[in-house]
């Protein structure tokens, strides 16, 4: 999910990343709405609210909303900074850092909400700010590494794209286009996962309250460790294979005493080092 970049990503990579992160975003958005009466993952509404508050002369509310919009923007900025500056050194680490930061933000909201929250306005605004920053990080990362194919914190663009795609499917040539079908599947999966996350959040919020954020973080941990596990597994399997090959070669050379010592040595050296 996180190891590959841009065009080297497969549809499966994008679907896995999209589904897990959209599910998390759906959960966070509904949790913030139920707990704090404000959305945390879709920004379009905040722009409209900012305009409305400015028109009404409510400068305090306008400042709050402007701050939230800035933090969402800053989340995307930070995310892409890691991606473009660390990508060449270690792709996996470059892509995992924004998710780690997001987890830190969400766990902080969960812990603070569960143990310290006095329901004052400043606390509410600060926690929403953290959530918006976290969502900005997530959206920035998914969009950046998937070449803007995966955006998971809001569904405006996805719904528009789906509308366009389904209208194109009225033509037979587009219906048979593998790439377009794949895109439709990806977008539908993201929309369904976001909705599922929102529903699950709405149901479990009554029982879990702020502990919901730990569950969201768990989904993000899966995103990180899925690739980590695959990398480890790949290395383990590669090492195992090379060791087996080395043992086989050694036993083969032992069974052939006529091979001169020098040649035997060379055979062992030829075993690739993983």
């Amino acid at each position, binding site marked *: 999910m996180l190891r590959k970049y841009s065009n080297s990503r497969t549809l499966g990579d994008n679907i896995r990343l999209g589904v897990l992160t959209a599910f998390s975003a759906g959960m966070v958005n509904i949790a913030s709405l139920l707990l*704090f*009466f*404000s959305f945390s993952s879709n920004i379009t509404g905040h722009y409209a*609210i900012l305009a409305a*508050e400015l028109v009404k002369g*409510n*400068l*305090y*509310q*306008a*400042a*709050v*909303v*402007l*701050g*939230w919009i*800035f933090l969402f923007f*800053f989340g995307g900025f930070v995310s892409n900074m890691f991606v473009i500056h660390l990508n060449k050194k270690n792709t996996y680490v470059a892509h995992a850092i924004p998710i780690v930061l997001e987890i830190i933000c969400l766990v902080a909201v969960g812990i603070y909400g569960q143990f310290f929250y006095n*329901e*004052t*306005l400043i606390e*509410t*605004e600060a926690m929403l700010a953290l959530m918006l920053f976290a969502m900005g990080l997530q959206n920035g990362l998914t969009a950046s590494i998937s070449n803007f194919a995966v955006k998971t914190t809001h569904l405006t663009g996805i719904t528009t794209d789906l509308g366009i795609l389904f209208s194109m499917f009225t033509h037979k040539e587009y219906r048979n286009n593998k790439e377009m079908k794949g895109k439709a599947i990806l977008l539908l999966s993201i929309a369904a996962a976001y909705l599922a996350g929102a529903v699950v959040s709405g149901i479990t919020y009554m029982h879990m309250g702020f502990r919901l954020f730990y569950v969201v973080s768990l989904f993000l941990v899966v995103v990180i460790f899925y690739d980590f596990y695959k990398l480890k597994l790949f290395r383990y399997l590669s090492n195992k294979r090379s060791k087996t090959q080395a043992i086989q070669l050694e036993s083969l050379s032992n069974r052939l005493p006529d091979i001169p010592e020098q040649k035997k040595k060379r055979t062992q050296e030829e075993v690739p080092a993983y």
Partner: protein
Amino acid sequence: MKLVLTYSLVFLCGILGVFMLFNASANPEKLILGKWKETDWKFETGIAFAADIAAASKAKVTQPEFSFHRAEDWEFLPGGHLRLKIAGQQELLTWRIKGRGHVLQIQYGNDRIENYQLTVLDNNKMILNAESDVQARGISQLIFEREKSETYAQKIQ
């Protein structure tokens, strides 16, 4: 180096702008403190039969659920306490402001919660919008005026 400076400057200007907006306005949590008198309430125009429902409710023909029908004097105290005066008796509830400062949440002792939209809140006037689907599907609007003797907000400012 020049790039870092430019970016830092732009971000700093943005943050400074937000803080200036904060300073130029009053925090709703402080602005709401004090005594308020309910002067009027009405259903939003454009809703079918709104006038009839409002008239019926005012005449006590029907009994809506919201507390504003039981108390006309509200006193918002620091620490999140709300004192309602109902027929000469006092009831103590808790209040919180949520969202971006646009939702007033009132909690009763029995964990019943009422949410109101803070449509207008200034030194003299407060308008709350309460959505009620008990009596009618529509939005009722409560209009309050600050009692002149009250100086909580002024003291704090």
